[in-house]
């Protein structure tokens, strides 16, 4: 039992830790270099032009604030010795800072621990503006075995560049554990072709003036001079917003893992019940001796508490270990869908440990409550009862309660989600509905035992074993009901997850099939994540698109923007030749002619919006959306809604011409090519790959293969949880059967005396267990369909704004069902065989 609690607590804890580590591995700023900034200045959209710097400097006047301009990008890292055609390269952040300016920051941070201080000691020359020199964080140095003087190649946008390592930065407690490269700012500007741009400016205050009136004064003067050009933020606010973006994802993960604990709860309940029953005479004696109810209750609860504490303790250890394993998976998912995150280990977090441990203890106490009450209420006389009386969990005696819960569940599904602005929407009511359905179905089906028995009575059976087995269902004990309920729960959850995953896969494949129609796809190497900054420059894609083997090309452009203070994307497509029609998967198609490239007479622009954008912000066809671009505010009118599973932030699509005009940038994120008839795809791909080593060029077949792989990786977590659920359920059945056998040892002895063979008894137990499993399975499957519906149409839609199609994997479910039925029956039979050898007690 301790192990069960440990498993449940452990899985919950490890998910929480992994999620937390992955989300917080989000190194927002160049903090690793500055050691912590006090304010951040950035534009509301797009990049900060260096042309604004003089005004900025003047605004700051003589305020004692150090300003560190930062340019950030992501690059792919090609390691020495790795094959040039490697598809996957690690993505790293590349930070450009004024290497000289940053050294001055150390004088503001009196502790001398700023990594910046290490940028060349006095007397050592700094290579200013040197295009070849790069500094590595200690993580990168360790992970990739690169040291001072070493060489490396990075893919900047679409081109590889060769750099040499100037130095390795020392490790620093604060933020120094990330993976990143540092270059002198002007060098990085030239390297990325962004000579006149910055990303943001970090402001560092003197140690003694932090957190005082200087903050307000700086904000005031800067905002006064801003004229709408820039905003000032605190690092904490930015970090919180980044955390909240992944809140929904992490919340969902946590809930799923805590449901595993719930199943374990049932198991413990059963086991504790059995305990009470077994020690009935002991309890009776205690009562005879005068023990009070309260004392009995207390001592049984104390046992449950001990179980909870020990189990939770063990669970925390297991969970911590598990988190290390899990963190890669979670971090990978977050990186792919949200933002680049670097994390090596999941750190211990006291708060999460407390939460997980507390949940484990509470669950144990909850599981122990009913049996403890049972024990306490045992009349002394019962102590000497040979026949176990019909005690047990009263809850399961009320099928009406079950029906009521189902109704409540349905009602809950109609409630809207809890939102935190537009950033995160948590389907709390959806989860509560799921719990209601879970418990309701469990109660209902356990009440169906006698019905099932009556139906089967006719079948009666020639075999005495069968008759004996079936006879137990006439008046099912609390234990039977509990077992059925537990099975319904476990099977329901497991099958529900299988259903959800299958639906997701079917939907996504359908989407992929309709959108991935091109022959060849290109993306900068190392650009795997939603926040990657690498781009395919215009001259590069124009050259590629004009290749004689290419029939048509589609370029995707996109820039992160904010709408209603929430991060989202503004995208566009270029089709070459221009006449090629667009292809979208419409959720709501445009109702009339569409022209994205020119504004309407009133100055509005037509746009398409993705489904998740519309759901998140409550927009529909015909609605207007005003966004801020570097060229000022633009009003967009939504004329079509499309499905896009690429990211959960949602996106708005405008014409390529306006987008390029507003952002001054026609570089592409991806390039898709359709080749002319008869052109061999693989040969073309290989040729282009060697011509453009900085690009990741995949054929359709290769891409599909990779997506398969991504699927497997991303959902490995849920599959593991599913396996735990099923194992726990079958274990529960086995435990229940064991308890039953123990209870019935006299009966079994009688049967033996009457001449029933061991095999006969085993067969009877197998039938009894099999039927219980069968009923539980049936209920579980029904529940899984319901849960699947809740997960897809309520929880998923509310969390992410997507519509998935409901697809039932009959084959997989049949396999799951058969597996449970067979194992359940076998386990029960085996327990029966064991039970047949128990010595009955003889009087005298």
């Amino acid at each position: 039992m301790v192990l069960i609690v440990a498993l449940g607590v452990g899985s919950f804890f490890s998910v929480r830790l992994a999620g937390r580590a992955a989300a917080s591995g989000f190194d927002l700023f160049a903090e690793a270099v500055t050691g912590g900034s006090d304010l951040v200045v950035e534009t509301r959209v797009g990049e900060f032009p260096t042309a604004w710097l003089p005004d900025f400097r003047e605004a700051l006047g003589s305020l004692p604030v150090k300003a560190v301009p930062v340019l950030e990008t992501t690059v792919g890292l090609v390691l020495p010795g790795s094959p040039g055609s490697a598809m996957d390269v690690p993505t790293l952040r590349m930070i450009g800072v004024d290497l000289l300016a940053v050294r001055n920051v150390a004088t503001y941070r009196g502790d001398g621990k700023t990594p910046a201080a290490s940028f060349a000691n006095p007397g050592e020359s700094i290579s200013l503006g040197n295009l070849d020199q790069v500094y590595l964080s200690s993580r990168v140095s360790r992970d990739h075995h690169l040291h001072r003087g070493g060489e490396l190649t990075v893919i900047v946008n679409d081109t590889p560049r060769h750099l040499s390592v100037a130095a390795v930065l020392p490790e620093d407690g604060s933020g120094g554990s990330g993976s990143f490269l540092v270059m002198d700012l002007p060098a990085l500007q030239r390297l990325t072709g962004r000579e006149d741009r910055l990303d943001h400016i970090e402001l560092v205050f003197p140690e003694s003036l932090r957190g005082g009136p200087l903050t307000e004064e700086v904000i005031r003067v800067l905002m006064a001079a801003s004229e709408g050009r820039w905003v000032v933020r605190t690092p904490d606010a930015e970090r919180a917003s980044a955390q909240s973006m992944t809140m929904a994802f992490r919340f969902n993960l946590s809930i799923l893992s805590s449901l595993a604990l719930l199943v374990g709860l049932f198991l413990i309940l059963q086991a504790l019940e059995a305990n009470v029953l077994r020690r009935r005479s002991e309890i009776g004696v205690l009562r005879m001796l005068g023990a009070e109810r309260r004392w009995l209750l207390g001592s049984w609860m104390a046992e449950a508490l001990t179980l909870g504490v020990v189990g939770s303790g063990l669970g925390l250890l297991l969970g911590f270990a598990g988190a290390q394993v899990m963190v890669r998976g979670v971090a990978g998912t977050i990186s792919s869908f949200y933002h680049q995150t670097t994390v090596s280990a999941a750190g211990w977090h006291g708060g999460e440990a407390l939460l997980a441990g507390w949940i484990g203890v509470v669950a144990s106490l909850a599981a122990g409550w009913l049996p403890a009450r049972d024990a306490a209420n045992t009349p002394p006389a019962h102590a000497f009862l040979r026949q176990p009386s019909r005690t047990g969990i009263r809850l399961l005696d009320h099928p009406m309660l079950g029906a009521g819960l189902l109704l409540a569940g349905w009602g809950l599904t109609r409630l809207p989600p809890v939102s935190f602005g537009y950033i995160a929407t948590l389907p709390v009511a959806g989860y509560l509905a799921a719990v209601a359905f879970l418990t309701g179905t469990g109660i209902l089906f356990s009440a169906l035992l006698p019905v099932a028995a009556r139906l089967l009575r006719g079948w009666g059976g020639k075999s005495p074993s069968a008759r004996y087995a079936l006879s137990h269902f006439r008046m099912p004990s609390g234990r039977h009901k509990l077992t059925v309920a537990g099975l319904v729960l476990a099977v329901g959850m497991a099958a529900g997850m299988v259903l959800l995953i299958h639906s997701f896969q079917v939907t996504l494949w359908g989407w992929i099939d309709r959108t991935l129609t091109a022959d060849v796809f290109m993306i900068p190497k190392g650009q795997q994540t939603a926040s990657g900054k690498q781009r395919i420059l215009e001259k590069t894609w124009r050259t590629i698109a004009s290749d004689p083997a290419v029939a048509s090309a589609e370029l995707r452009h996109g820039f992160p923007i904010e709408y209603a203070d929430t991060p989202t994307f503004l995208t566009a497509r270029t089709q070459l030749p221009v006449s090629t029609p667009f292809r979208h998967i419409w959720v709501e198609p445009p109702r009339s002619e569409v022209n994205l490239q020119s504004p309407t007479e009133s100055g509005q622009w037509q746009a398409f919006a993705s489904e998740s954008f519309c759901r998140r912000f409550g927009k529909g066809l015909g609605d207007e959306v005003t966004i801020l671009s570097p060229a000022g505010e633009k009003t967009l009118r939504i004329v079509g809604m499309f499905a896009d599973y690429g990211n959960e932030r949602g996106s708005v699509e405008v014409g390529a011409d306006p987008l390029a005009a507003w952002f001054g940038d026609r570089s592409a994120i991806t390039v898709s090519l359709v080749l002319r008839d008869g052109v061999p795809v693989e040969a073309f791909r290989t040729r282009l790959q060697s011509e453009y080593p900085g690009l990741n060029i995949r054929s359709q077949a290769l891409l599909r293969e990779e997506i398969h792989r991504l699927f497997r990786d991303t959902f490995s977590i849920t599959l593991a949880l599913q396996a735990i659920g099923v194992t726990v359920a079958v274990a529960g059945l086995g435990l229940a059967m064991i308890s039953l056998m123990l209870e019935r040892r006299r009966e079994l002895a009688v049967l033996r005396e009457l001449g029933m063979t061991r095999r006969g008894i085993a067969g009877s137990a197998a039938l009894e267990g099999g039927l219980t499993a069968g009923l539980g399975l049936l209920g579980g499957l029904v529940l899984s369909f319901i849960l699947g519906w809740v997960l897809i149409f309520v929880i998923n839609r509310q969390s992410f704004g997507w519509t998935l199609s409901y697809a039932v994997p009959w084959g997989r479910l049949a396999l799951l069902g058969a597996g449970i039925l067979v194992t359940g029956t076998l386990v029960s039979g085996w327990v029966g065989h064991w039970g047949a050898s128990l010595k009955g007690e003889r009087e005298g």
Partner: protein
Amino acid sequence: MKRGIMFLVIMGVGLSASLRAGVTADGFAYATPNPSFQFPRDHGSHPEFRIEWWYYTGHLFAASGRRFGFEATFFRYALHPGGDHAESAFGTNQLYMAHMALTDVEGQTFLYEERLHRDGWEAWAKEGELDLRNGNWSVTMSEDETMTLKGSIRGEVRLDVRLAPQQDKVLFGDQGYSRKGDAVEAASWYITFPRLEVAGELTFRGEVIPVTGQAWMDHEISSSQLDPDQVGWDWASIQLDDGRSVMVYLLRQKDSTPDVHSRLTWIGAEGILGAWGPSDFSWTARETWTSPETGGVYPVDIDLVLPDPDGGAARRLRLKPVMAAQELTGQLSGVPYWEGACDVLDEAGTRIGYAYVELTGYAGDLGEAMR
């Protein structure tokens, strides 16, 4: 096209500057006689020269009688000859170093901060006018040659003062051409405001204090300050209550003897009263102070014996530092030096003036840095 014009303009400026300057082997201009200064143009930067500084020291007094000493120095150091001024916000041609120090006499506290920036958006020294910037420190000059100095030392000190010349600027050496060594390049152009009246505000640890006082400003332009044999210098600016000033520097050689180019100059209200060589004055330290941070052993508390142009007799002045520990440790530059506010005492021990004393080359290798 634009770049081409810029290039010509700079070359033009450089050309005109180089017409009056020599060119070192590295390609930098070096100071030559007859600099033919034009103001306000030559208050500004001379980027074709390797090293340039604008250097302020002074004494501040609050109404309560509380006293402070301050130093603010803006250095320019050229990385490449050719004198291209920054075209980008993050240049790679010039380095701007700056120091700011404050001596709190009552509290016996010495605070200082060093900066090192590249030329660009937040550090510059403009050509053609006096406009200096290093982060949030700045100096500007108005038409009447009044300068506004704004500075800070981390979170503890803020300074916002106006410095108005009480007498015309002085050109040291020969019309501003000052020899420092035997080599032809070991020279500088040297412009000084020996008497500036200071008024403004000092914020010291949160307390805003209106202050007045007097200051001294040096502007030196050169490409090499020291000969190979020279290890450093001792320098003092003395402002006597009778209105006269003395500027004295001792160039120390490896064998500790003063270089022949060491100078002592008396300045009156109308200008230079006279200049003397090392054989005419003596500079003796009464005691030494060892820096716990750099290990430098500084000879502080100077006994200066010098001829007085008014009468010709020798005088003894004591330059007594208000506190011993006034060293800037050179975190960013690698060159520590001592720069301290002092009282000038006569032989009877009466205070007859204020001075600032600078001692360099007692720790680290100054010669390397200067060449």
